[in-house]
């Protein structure tokens, strides 16, 4: 029997998360994080937000964005601690905590998307 290693899958999730967050996050941070709070632009009304989020495709895209970005974070965080700060003896613990947070965050994201009316 072939022993399957999770590493290729984790790299794929890292990569996919890097691409989707790179594509969608800059504009979302610019709008919701800077332009609306500084009143450069008028934020969408509540009805408009409900209409946008009411579309299952929007929620699916947002869920993909959240889940893949979380695994992207987990992978990069883990490797930065390993290579950057050289915390090598805690490798297993750090991996467990990082991917654990990604899994919990993904479940939370799925729940929140499900809850949108």
């Amino acid at each position, binding site marked *: 029997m072939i022993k399957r290693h999770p590493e290729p899958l984790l790299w794929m999730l890292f*990569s996919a*998360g*890097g*691409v989707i*967050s*790179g*594509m*969608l*996050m*800059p*504009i*979302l*941070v*610019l*709008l*919701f*994080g*800077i332009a*609306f*709070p*500084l009143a450069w*632009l008028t*934020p*969408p009304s*509540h009805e*408009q*937000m*409900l209409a*946008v*989020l009411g579309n299952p495709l*929007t929620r699916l895209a*947002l869920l993909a*964005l*959240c889940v893949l*970005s*979380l695994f*992207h*974070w987990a992978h*990069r*965080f883990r*490797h*930065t601690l390993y290579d*950057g*700060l*050289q915390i090598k003896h805690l490798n297993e613990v750090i991996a467990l905590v990082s991917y654990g947070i990604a899994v919990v*965050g993904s479940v*939370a*994201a799925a729940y*929140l*998307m499900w*809850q*949108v*009316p």
Partner: protein
Amino acid sequence: MARSHVYTDYHPRWLRRNLSTYWWLEKRAYLAFILREGSCMFVAWFVAYLLLLVRAVTIGPGSYAQFLEWSAAPWVLAVNIVAFVFIVYHAVTFFVAAPQAMVVHIRRKRVPSYLVLAGHYVAWAIASVFVSWLLLGA
């Protein structure tokens, strides 16, 4: 005949330089590397921020208004401005690395790397315009 090889239990030590924990402060390129890796913290922050926004919209208009008010608090705004810089840095460095990671073939000919890069930038622009249209237009 003499034996030409005698194997012993001797294990040579690995040739390894002792690295300081702060090795990434030594050169600009190293610092750029660690900042690029650090961008993932802001990616994670924005996932949390986005989920709080979705939650607020789900709860109702009052909660959404409260979220918008909270987003204008000085510390939240400051974090988001820093996050924007890091996330753009992340996007650019990720797309620049893409041609090395993605080898695309069309009709058995390799697509040149500048086209793979351009494709990423075009997709980025289309995605940004589409999101803006969804939220601001109509």
